[in-house]
Each structure stands twice: as structure tokens, then as C-alpha cells.
């Protein structure tokens, strides 16, 4: 009627495969594992892939990176879905700690934000005295501007700068796209629009883009990164010991030296900033 033997044989093979796969998947969860939620700016630039293998060699702790915007990273930390967060949004970080979600914040490094746009600079922002003046010029000429719009550290920074212009940006020229930094640079590139980016991502994308760096250097564009451990009192399951090792390694002279030496396309991306 039907070849029963085939079914048995197939069934046997399938069970062996299932058993193998389940054991392989289960085997991935080890005690010396650390989950770090970080921003797309540190992950997409390649900094983490450069630092973490060395950390794993020194401490035998494996780190898994989840690259999201600062807003989501803090949310993951608050819910205890990660062990630590490495983000750049001072105010939001302070609120996170004040609410008891995180402990042991440490400064790790900094870079800065820059304004980029089409090289012909239709709003003539390149000669501006301050970043506020540059943004006002963009607004006054209604030149296209791409905003992250994703509650990331970069987006929070951009919004705080617009606030200082006493004007909440709106209109056809202001496009909130809700995507990561790299994507936003690509969109700005396609539309010949202005945008604000952290220098790290800009250096990583510069060669793939027709845009030019048009404004930099205002102290208001300073962009410090901090690492925060998820509060073990709120979430007993977090790998707090591992996080402490990571924090002390990143702020050690070795970690700081490596951060300072990290280069993309021959340019340094981050300045070590541990105190």
C-alpha cells in the first residue's frame, strides 16, 4: 500500500537532526555570556568587532552585541533583556540611573556630531558661527533635512538643538525617516539633503557617499558615550559580574588605548574619555 520503511527511515533521520539541532542551540547559552545593547554608531563603525575579541581573550567572557537606537537600548536595559547598555544620551542616561534601572555608569569615550549635506550647500551653512545658526539657515531656506526620528541618541541630540532655535521643525523639507544612522546618510545622499550624524558613522560612510562635511566644531555637538550596568537589584538574572569586568576593561589603560587607536579609512573615530 505504501512503503512503511521509508517513513520509518525518514522519521529516524528527522529525529537525529532535531536532537542535534536542539543540543547545538541549547549549547550556546553559557554562563560567561554578556549581552550588551549598544547604538548603531558603535556597532556599524566596526569598533565593537575590534574591541570585543580582545576582551574575550583577556576575560573569557563572550559578549553579544544588540545594535539598536539609544531609546530602545535603554528600554531593553530597563526590562532586563540585556546585561549592560553602551549609549550616548547624557540626559536619558541620567534619568535611567535615577529611576534605579542602571548602576555603575562610566564614561568610555567621545566623538562629535557633524552636519553633512550636498557639497553645493544650498543653505550656505558652512560658514556658520554656531550649529544653531547653521540649523536656522537650513530652516529659513527650507532646504531638505533628514532626521533619524527614531528616539536614538543622535535624534535626541538633534531635537535638543532644534529646540534651541525656538522652532520645532516641520514642513515638507523636514523628513523624519525612523531609521539607523547609516540608512539616514544613504537617504540624505539620494535626496541631496542635510542631516546630522556622529562623526564615526560619517567616516565609515564617507567613501560611499557624495555628501560633504559642511559644519563641525561647535562644543554643543560634543557626543560622549557611557556604559551602564543593568541594576542587579531589579533583575537578579543579569550578569552583573561580567558587566563589571567589561566596564573596568573598557576604562582600563589597555581598553582606552585600543579605543584611541581604532581607525576607519585612516581616520580616528573615537577619543578615549574614561575618568
Amino acid at each position, binding site marked *: *500500500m*505504501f512503503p*512503511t520503511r521509508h*517513513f520509518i527511515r525518514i522519521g529516524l533521520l*528527522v529525529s537525529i*537532526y*532535531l536532537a542535534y*539541532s*536542539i543540543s*547545538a*542551540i*541549547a549549547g*550556546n*547559552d553559557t554562563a560567561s555570556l554578556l*549581552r550588551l545593547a549598544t547604538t*548603531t554608531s558603535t556597532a*556599524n563603525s566596526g569598533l565593537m*568587532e575590534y574591541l570585543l575579541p580582545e576582551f574575550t581573550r583577556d576575560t573569557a567572557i563572550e559578549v*553579544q*552585541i*544588540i*545594535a539598536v537606537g539609544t531609546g530602545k537600548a535603554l528600554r531593553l536595559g530597563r*526590562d*532586563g*533583556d*540585556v546585561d549592560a547598555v553602551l549609549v550616548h544620551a547624557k540626559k536619558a542616561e541620567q534619568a535611567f540611573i535615577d529611576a534605579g534601572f542602571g548602576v555603575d555608569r562610566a564614561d568610555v569615550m567621545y566623538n562629535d556630531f557633524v552636519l553633512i549635506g550636498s557639497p553645493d550647500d544650498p543653505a550656505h551653512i558652512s560658514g556658520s558661527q554656531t550649529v544653531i545658526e547653521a540649523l536656522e539657515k537650513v530652516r529659513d531656506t527650507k532646504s531638505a533635512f533628514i532626521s533619524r526620528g527614531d528616539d536614538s541618541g543622535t535624534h535626541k541630540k538633534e531635537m535638543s538643538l532644534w529646540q534651541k532655535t525656538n522652532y520645532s521643525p516641520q514642513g515638507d523639507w523636514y523628513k523624519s525617516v525612523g*531609521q*539607523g544612522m*547609516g*540608512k539616514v546618510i*544613504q537617504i540624505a545622499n539620494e535626496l541631496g539633503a542635510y542631516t546630522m550624524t556622529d562623526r564615526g558613522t560619517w567616516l*565609515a*560612510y564617507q567613501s*560611499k*557617499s557624495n555628501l560633504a562635511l559642511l559644519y563641525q566644531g561647535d562644543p554643543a555637538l560634543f557626543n560622549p558615550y557611557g556604559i551602564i550596568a543593568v541594576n542587579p537589584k531589579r*533583575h537578579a*538574572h543579569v550578569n552583573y559580574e561580567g558587566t563589571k569586568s567589561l566596564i573596568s576593561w573598557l576604562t582600563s589603560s589597555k581598553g582606552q588605548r585600543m579605543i584611541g587607536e581604532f581607525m576607519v579609512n585612516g581616520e580616528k573615530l573615537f577619543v578615549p574619555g574614561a575618568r
Partner: protein
Amino acid sequence: MDVLIASTLEAFRLLFSGNAEIWEIIGISFRVSTLAILLAIPPALIIAFVLAYGNFFGRRFLISLFNTFLSIPAVVIGLTLFIVLSRQGPMGDLGLLFTQTAMMMGQFILCLPILIAMAHTSFQAADRRAWETARTLGANRFYAFVTVLYEIRFGLLAAMLAAYGRIISEVGASMMLGGNIAHYTRNIPTAIALETSKGNFAEGIALGVVLLFLAFVLNGLLHHVQGKGSIHP
């Protein structure tokens, strides 16, 4: 156009130069999706069989329900499972979020309605007499069930291929549930999304080529099996 050609050439170079990272991503994709569909097939077949041959109150409603599930966006399944698996959620204690198991669960839920809907159609199209004959000849319920399965094997195979195609190319749920962690939960679709956002189009296309190639092989396989079926009915 130049970018497209250059990226495609670079893609083939990456694939065949044995780039370990790309092959690791491919391996993760296959392991997770294959496991998900293998776990989904047995319950799906039983549910489809009961829906087709059973006669109980609410049967039509259930059929409509599973057909509706076909159109749920993957990200909605991803988000729902994310909330359930998050440490704040009802299953948070298991610590499954951002693991391959979580991705597998998402894909399991995604492929289940496809398997059920398509298998249900096959069961309905099958000659009911196969079941009755088997039962008359003394087969118990299980063997009669297997007999019917064998009768509609081509329809079932098509269902499995369609379901596999959906889950192995799905990005939304995998991204949310796996977190796109390198060497662990980074599969083909999430890697394509990442590489594209980084402007590395060659890597993205290389992985796209793998998916296309897989679709081609699977379809060829189906065609082959169906061809055999027509010679030896």
C-alpha cells in the same frame, strides 16, 4: 547599473572564496528554519487532517481563522512574541529573548498557518475513499492517516516548500526576536538588512543569491518529485 553589476560580481567572489562569515550566516539560517519547520509539520498535519475530515462544531470558523493567520505580518508575530519573551513578559524567566530558540519560535508560528491551510486543501482534494478503504482493510487510525498522507504527498511537499520559503526569507520577526547578534542570531535576511544599511551592497547581494539559489533547488526538487509521481501514480 554599474553598481549592480559590480556588486553581483563581488557577491559571487565572496561566496566562492569561502568567506567564513557569510557561510556561518547561511548555516544559522538553515539550522533555525529547518528546525522550525520540522517541529511545525507534525502538529500542522494533524490539525489540517482534523479540519478536513472531522465533523465538529466550529470547524468552519477554525478554517477561516487559520486562513486569516496567513496574512499576519511577520513583525506583528515578532512583536507579540517579543513582549511574551521579554524579561517583563509572562515567559521572561526562561531568558529566551535574543536566542536562536526565540527566532525558531517566531518562524514556527509563521509557517504553521501556511502548512495548515495548504495541507487542509490537499486533504480536501484527496479521495476520501483512501481513508475508508484503509480503515476497512483493518488499518488502525494512525496507519490510515499515514496512507492518506502518502496519497497527497505532492500537495504536502508543495505546502512545506511554500512554508520554508516564507520563514527562511523572513526578516521582521528574526530581527526582533534574535537581535541580529553576530555569530549567533544573524541569519541571511537580518544580515542583508544590516549590510544594506551599512552600504555594503555586495555582501547583501551575495546572501540574496544564496536565497535565490535555494529557491531554485527546492523548486527543481519539487518538479522532479512531481514528475516521478505522474509516471508511477
